[in-house]
């Protein structure tokens, strides 16, 4: 598993949930300790030179893995969209070959379940009213389509409600949220309004960065509505864990 830097630091429970789901399905999870960050923040903000060593580090840590599962759609999008070009920019034949080979084995968490394992029902139980936000990178860059929704529909006890404007960006966009805080806030206001209109207890997604953004406003407004990563829903079971 590649947990990603911000999940490691801010959302450890998402990583724990990924471990729980994968082990419940009979897989062995390994966590290379040297992993840090994919370089997305640097790359997308214009610091491409700083992102390059982070890509090399990722490749060194994971090149022998059978499959790399990442509970963050935007980090996987960063790798798929930009790593091949970054590798080619170095002119190093070995790095190019390693990146190309490794990327075929890198999966966003829900994608690993639906596309690599061909699963929909992972034996989860989650008795709550939930709405799903389609994170932009998962939706448009990874083409997750209705995969996450199919996983959610198979959860026992769940009351899944459709989110209006499900494909519209929540306004996070990494440094966009601070560089263009006003516009970002206006986009967020539309998203939280849509979430509240569903009367859901929680909003879920495949990306904690969007959820951190949405949660930030839901908490500021004291709405009592929370956010939860998809993996944490799928990790839920009758034992109430």
């Amino acid at each position: 598993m590649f947990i990603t830097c911000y999940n490691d630091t801010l959302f450890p429970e998402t990583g724990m949930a990924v471990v729980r789901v994968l082990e419940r399905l009979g897989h062995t999870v390994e966590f290379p300790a040297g992993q840090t960050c994919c370089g997305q923040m640097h790359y997308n903000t214009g610091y491409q030179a700083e992102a390059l060593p982070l890509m090399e580090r990722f490749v060194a840590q994971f090149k022998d893995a059978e499959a790399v599962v990442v509970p963050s759609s935007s980090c996987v999008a960063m790798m798929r969209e930009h790593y091949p070009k970054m590798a080619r920019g170095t002119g190093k034949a070995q790095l190019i070959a390693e990146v190309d080979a490794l990327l075929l084995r890198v999966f966003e968490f829900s994608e690993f379940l639906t596309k690599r394992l061909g699963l929909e029902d992972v034996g989860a139980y989650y008795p709550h009213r939930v709405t799903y936000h389609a994170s932009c990178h998962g939706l448009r860059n990874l083409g997750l389509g209705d995969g996450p929704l199919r996983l959610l529909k198979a959860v026992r006890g769940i009351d899944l409600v459709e989110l209006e404007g499900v494909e519209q960006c929540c306004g996070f966009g990494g440094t966009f949220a601070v560089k263009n805080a006003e516009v970002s806030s206006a986009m967020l206001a539309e998203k939280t309004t849509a979430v509240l209109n569903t009367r859901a207890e929680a909003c879920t997604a495949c990306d904690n960065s969007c959820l951190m953004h949405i949660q930030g406003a839901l908490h500021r407004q004291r709405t009592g509505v929370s956010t939860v990563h998809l993996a944490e829903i799928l990790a839920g079971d009758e034992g109430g864990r």
Partner: protein
Amino acid sequence: MINPGGRLAGAVCALCARRPMSEVPDMGHPAPGLVAAMSGTALDPKTAPAFPIAAQAAMQDTQLRKNVRHATEVIRTKRARVVGEMPDWQELREAGKQIRQHTMEHLDFYLEQFEANCTKAGGVVHWAADADEARRIVIGLVKASGSDEVIKIKSMTTEEIQLNAGLKAAGIHAYETDLAELIIQLGQDRPSHIVVPALHKNRQQIREIFRREMNLPELGERPQDLADAARRFLREKFLRVKTGVSGANFLIAETGGVCIVESEGNGRMCLTLPETLITVAGIDKVLPRFEDLEVMLQLLPRSATGERMNPYNSIWNGVHAGDGPKTFHVVLMDNARTSVLADEEGRQTLNCIRCAACLNACPVYRQTGGHAYGSVYAGPIGAILTPQLQQMHHAQSLPYASSLCGACYEVCPVKINIPEVLIHLRSKVVEQKGMFDVEAAAMRAAAVVFRSERRFRAAQRLARAAESPLVGKDGWIGWLPGMLGGWTKVRDLKEIPKESFREWWEKRGRSE
């Protein structure tokens, strides 16, 4: 009914078609004060405020935000419907991309071919290196035509070079004849959208502008009332003014022809009635073959206005005795396009066919409208085109005016990867930053941290310690200092958990 460029424009066309020209009463000269009102202020990236500042101002205007949301939703819905009915839409997009890419790779060849064929057909081709030269050429041609006024077809290229102001300074009055551009001109406003420039105005606001500027105190507020007023106002200009100025949607190298598509028929008037026609086109507008229009004229109307076909498709070659203008000039303008072409990663920007589907899809544009971009090219395409046309000397905030959500790329009919170009331009902005830039220093420091497991662990612990004075009793942070304060204006931040994932994982490993 609020979308002026769409429905209202359609009403004008319908009226034009139904009533022969001879029945149209003479409007006489413009109402008093009209000429002064037509000056307007131009959108100039050199003087425009940074996007976050301009956006903040734009977002105070609740009427504007309602109008923009409504109009973009209407066009988006129409586009989705007519794109959805095309089984080969993705193949068409790919064909569009290939045609444009091929053209850009051989731009010199196709431009010279266009020049030769246009000249052969009786046109006169002029080359302009920049906006100043283009304006000088047009002013000279208008004066040579013996006219001190021109009728204009909607053209973003002439907006780009602020032609109307240049003409005015030379004593030449320009009348915009596109309904939306007329609204902009009479309202002393600025275009906020590439295809629907008055999209930020609703019907009631347009009525007020017409009442005031056309001196029509009794004007009704039904779309047909407004359309009728515009039609009467414009018809007199069409019949009187002897010189027309247009832009171009496409230049066809193979035939030397020029193509303009529109919804109203007012463009057709400008192309056929004047004695002299002057077309100003960016050098990026060329297409190799006539048959390439087959692809482009499917992609463009469906993407732009959600129509299967434009109501008016005009294609003309040079001049013809006894039919249309006697003199035809084309001004081929560079204005930094060759510098865009020289940049391998940025050059796909020139593939744009100005459909504005990216504006309608953009969640940022949806909040701010077009004026915040400080350029006639707004929205996602403006965010990549404008800084490049400024050769990165101005408009550096625009590449950051995006959350990189990718909705623009998804709808682009020629598959311009706008997020990719935005990121490329961000790296160019970063290159210009000095040694002591706070953001650059923070980014470099973060990169150093991420390059070592030990440093990353230390940073995780440090972050927990550093934030602890800011964490409230409920475990949330409501205020952050400096640049990060942008976050806590409207959002809280949960405190960093006491245990990172890797700490949990290691503890778990030890206990097993």
